[in-house]
């Protein structure tokens, strides 16, 4: 204490000790509470999985188990922005297909990029074994449409460009059909407890 005064600094007060120790005790209580709570993590995890249903070993992130709810949520998180982007690209194409060849081709190229990325995301998605075949068909359908759209984007005239529309629409219907099937399968998928 004398050193404190000698150095000309503000003297230490009793309140300083009280405050420091009080914060320390509070932190100790919180840490101990946290550790006790953490000790029950395993049990709570199992309870959540039992309540929500479980897809063993599907998680890409190293979790032991992925719930159907989580899987559906991940699927929606991938498909929603991708579909929005594709719809934007298609709208840009539709707006230009009769008047502006360069703009229409640019829109098609953008669509090819978006659709390729979407297909690649779905190809990496950890679909459950029962849905995997349908997912594979969907990825193939997307690839077929991408190939056709890329070909369309190389058209020399507006007439040639529009001549692809019918085939592209058919390819698009195939994609939509597969997507609906997968969405339905994910939504209606039985939980682990219900499975034989």
């Amino acid at each position: 204490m004398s050193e404190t005064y000698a150095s000309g600094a503000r003297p230490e007060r009793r309140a300083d000790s009280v405050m420091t120790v009080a914060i320390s005790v509070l932190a100790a209580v919180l840490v101990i509470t946290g550790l006790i709570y953490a000790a029950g993590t395993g049990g709570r995890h199992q309870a959540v999985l039992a309540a929500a249903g479980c897809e063993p070993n599907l998680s890409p992130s190293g979790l032991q188990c992925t719930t159907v709810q989580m899987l559906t949520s991940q699927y929606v998180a991938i498909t929603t922005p991708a579909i929005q982007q594709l719809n934007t690209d298609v709208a840009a194409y539709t707006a230009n297909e009769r008047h502006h060849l360069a703009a229409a081709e640019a829109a098609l190229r953008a669509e090819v990029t978006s659709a390729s990325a979407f297909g690649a995301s779905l190809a990496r998605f950890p679909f459950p074994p029962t849905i995997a075949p349908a997912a594979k068909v969907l990825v193939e359908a997307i690839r077929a449409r991408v190939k056709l759209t890329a070909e369309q984007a190389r058209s020399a005239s507006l007439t040639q460009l529009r001549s692809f529309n019918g085939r592209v629409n058919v390819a698009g219907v195939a994609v939509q059909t597969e997507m609906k099937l997968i969405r339905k399968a994910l939504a209606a998928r039985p939980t682990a407890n219900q499975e034989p």
Partner: protein
Amino acid sequence: MATTRNYEPDLYPDDAIDRWNGKQESADDYRPQRRAAKRRVDEWMEVEFKFGGSRIKRKALALVLLGAPGLVPLLFMLPALITLNKNTFSVSVDDTLGTGAELCLFLCLLITPMVTLTGQRWFVPLRRWYGIMMACCAIGDALAAGLTDTFAGGFFGRVAGHVFELMGFMMVMLVIPLLVTGNHWAQRKLGRFWKPLQRLTYVIWGLLAFHLMLLEGFGFQRGSNGSGFAGDGDPIFHQRFYQYSACSLFLLTLRLPPVKRWIAARQSEGRNWLVHLTILPIFALFVFGMIFIVNEEIFKGIDSFMEHPSSE
């Protein structure tokens, strides 16, 4: 340097969290009785060693190793940036770069408490580095969210259309002057105004609390609203506001004048063990919070890096 002239000789360590610049003197310099022991590590860090054909200070190597994690959040988003993967940006940029910015802010704020506790100053340049990395992550997060998020209202609707986003937007606006003035030239030019300007870091720290509170329902899990939706049954540990609070208690406590006075008094008595023993639970709580933030960053970051973003 101009700003060091303003420091008063003080018993307790310099509170200079707001400086990203590590070249200034500390109040520690005015305490000869403590200086010798504490400067031993600093002096050891100043020693050069041979590396290839050149000589490098140990400090430089240590700073590079300790500073490298600051690049990790940006590295996680790099593949998505190179391939212009809008989906990855849309789904996980906020978790990867936002959490990265939070981590960098905490590491930036951690420097002053560590100086207070150890008396060493060789790691002070990390404050500036982590400040810059925090700014880069925060600006990157805002830009990506504004361009790729699914909220309505155009760019500004996406970055400031909700109250929690508005808080984030304000933080980004405040971080820009800090980034621009976080250099020696700006420090010289701004003179005595530089230090108060850098105190905006505190405002960012405070706004982050509101940002996280509003993001996840004031820290309470309601149905799927909150970080506890990850499916591991631990909504409390995943609440970002709780993680923030656990980390901030240590960072704030070590800045309180009464606590600093108490620490300085114990250190001057040669009772460092008592300081460490008392601060240990607060530091443990900090580590507890950081573990979950780092886990979040790695979990989401790796998914972003693989361009298979997780929306959990």
